[in-house]
């Protein structure tokens, strides 16, 4: 603004201060989101960093929670402590089976609820939320009562049944959301173009709903792998990884637990990275 400066040259220093404040405010405003973002991300990731760091720790005694000495030993011998690896194996096995079971049943349920007009549809729609809404402690204890009453031996199978049960709701909700967003005219167009019911499902419906099914499956796996409360009620003498950690915490958590934690974290990260890379490659190919 040349006119402003020429007429007001004596008062320039006075003008400068507000403009500096203004500049600071602009800077602050434009970087505010960044700052808040960093703080929130830090808040979210701090525990993860601790886990990663502790996986390289060699504690002086079992009961210390401080970082004492750097070592690769935990990573080289993760199965050194007691039955931890057996517990991880059990958890993985249950996680995978529960994921498959819950994803299959939940996906079918989602299709039924979204695509078919049957009696009791509204009620089903509501009841699906029930396992999600009821407290885990209640669910776990009532399941235990049920299994005991039925004289069903507690162990691997009761855990699996319980896990599939509480994962289904989450799968239904996730797949349903995706399916509801699917334009039925796409399937009609496929039928119009000589695809029979099966081909329409295989070529159009399934690929379009797949992202929903995949995220439902990932969610189911992490729910199952993590679960402690329901499992603890129904496990009998079977020990899953969360139960092992809980038990170990009484006597001091071995650093190998952090190795498993970090490994899981890295595995998840790799999955995300791969999917991002695939997406980017596809976009490049198209662009």
């Amino acid at each position: 603004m040349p006119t402003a400066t020429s007429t007001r040259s004596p008062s320039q220093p006075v003008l400068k201060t507000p403009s500096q404040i203004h500049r600071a405010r602009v800077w602050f405003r434009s970087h505010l989101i960044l700052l808040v973002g960093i703080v929130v991300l830090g808040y979210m990731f701090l525990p993860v960093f601790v886990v990663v760091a502790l996986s390289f720790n060699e504690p002086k005694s079992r009961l210390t929670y401080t970082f004492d000495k750097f070592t690769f030993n935990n990573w080289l011998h993760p199965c050194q402590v007691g039955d931890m690896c057996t517990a991880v194996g059990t958890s993985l096995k249950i996680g995978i089976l529960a994921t498959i079971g819950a994803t299959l049943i939940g996906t079918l349920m989602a299709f039924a609820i979204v695509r078919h007009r049957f009696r009791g549809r509204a009620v089903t729609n509501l009841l699906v939320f029930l396992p999600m809404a009821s407290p885990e402690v209640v669910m776990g204890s009532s399941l235990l009562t049920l299994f005991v009453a039925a004289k069903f031996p507690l162990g691997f199978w009761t855990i699996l049944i319980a896990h599939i049960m509480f994962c289904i709701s989450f799968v239904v909700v996730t797949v349903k959301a995706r399916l509801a967003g699917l334009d039925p005219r796409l399937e009609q167009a496929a039928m119009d173009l000589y695809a029979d019911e099966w081909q329409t499902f295989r070529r159009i419906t399934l690929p379009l709903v797949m992202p929903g099914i995949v995220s439902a499956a990932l969610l189911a796996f992490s729910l199952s792998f993590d679960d402690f409360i329901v499992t603890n009620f129904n496990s009998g003498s079977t020990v899953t990884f969360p139960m092992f950690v809980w038990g170990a915490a009484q006597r001091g958590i071995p650093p190998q637990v952090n190795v498993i934690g970090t490994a899981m974290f890295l595995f998840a990260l790799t999955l995300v990275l791969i999917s991002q890379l695939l997406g980017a490659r596809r976009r490049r190919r198209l662009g």
Partner: protein
Amino acid sequence: MAQAESVGGDLQLVHLTKMFATFTAVDDLNLVIPKGSFFALLGPSGCGKTTTLRMVAGLEEPTSGQIMIGEKDISFERPYRRPVNTVFQSYALFPHLDIFENVAFGLRRRKVKEVKSQVEAILSLVELDGFARRMPAQLSGGQQQRVALARALINKPEVLLLDEPLGALDLKLRRQMQIELKRIQVEVGITFVHVTHDQEEAMTMADTIAVMNGGKVEQMGSPTELYENPRTTFVANFLGQSNLISGKVFERSDDLGVELYGNRIRVPRSRTSSNSDSLWVGVRPEKINITLADRPIPAANVIPGVVTDASYIGVSTQYLVKTAWSEELMVFEQNLLNSGARPGDSVNLSWDPAHTFALDANQDVDAGVEVPEADS
């Protein structure tokens, strides 16, 4: 409607009705669409055009009635077994497949060989060469519409259903595609059933037009016949514009003598679609001559009036002329003739009796008057 003698692969709709709960979307429709013809379904929004097409495609079950192609009843055939393809109003391109695979979809399902060359040929026909590997979301609306067209057309069905296939295109591209579509239709000899709001599009492209209103066909015929000889006030107003004047028959001879508020005019019998003595007498605005009151009158049917508005729009001048009974009549005068009439002038409106049509007075005069394009 001729319904008895069906030839080859005519598409026939027989008493076709579709009800949604208690609402009748398509009401006892009877149509014969000759094989290889270009047929347009024209009508205002919500009159049941899409519903009719969906029943032909097999995407909606008729409540009653039949759909036949030739001798074959396809009313309840699965959509993928019908020799019919659709260009959807909403395109319905498969978002996870690229343009090539979208277009190739029908060929692949039928296990046709030489997919690549056919897809390339049809893509270049709709001027989308080089777009084969793009995804639908990366295309403009007009481009998507052309993909939808290519995807249906490539299958060379017996009947191609087009649900406003050119709605998203700009005027230039639309005209170009109209010519192209018409050319393709003549070339491949497929029956086209073309749904549109755009009367000009229907008139320029179709052999036969059916004007639909409220789930029924109001009138069917060639573009000329519909325009020159509308049989209902709806058609008279929906297809172009009409001046409709209330009249009473005072004489029936070779033609009809009709009195319009004291002005006696003649109407040919062949253009009268009612036996009643009360009529709506119609004349198109471009058929009327406008002459200043003191000049010779060039045609036999005459009504005097006063000019209230004149607007010059290039090819013509449009006048509004108020009659003694305060009705405003519309006159389009070619800018060749130049009557010199200005607002306030007393004029005579005159036209040839042959250009007059008469409709039953028992109808709403304003039926089908175009409200400026609300949707498209």
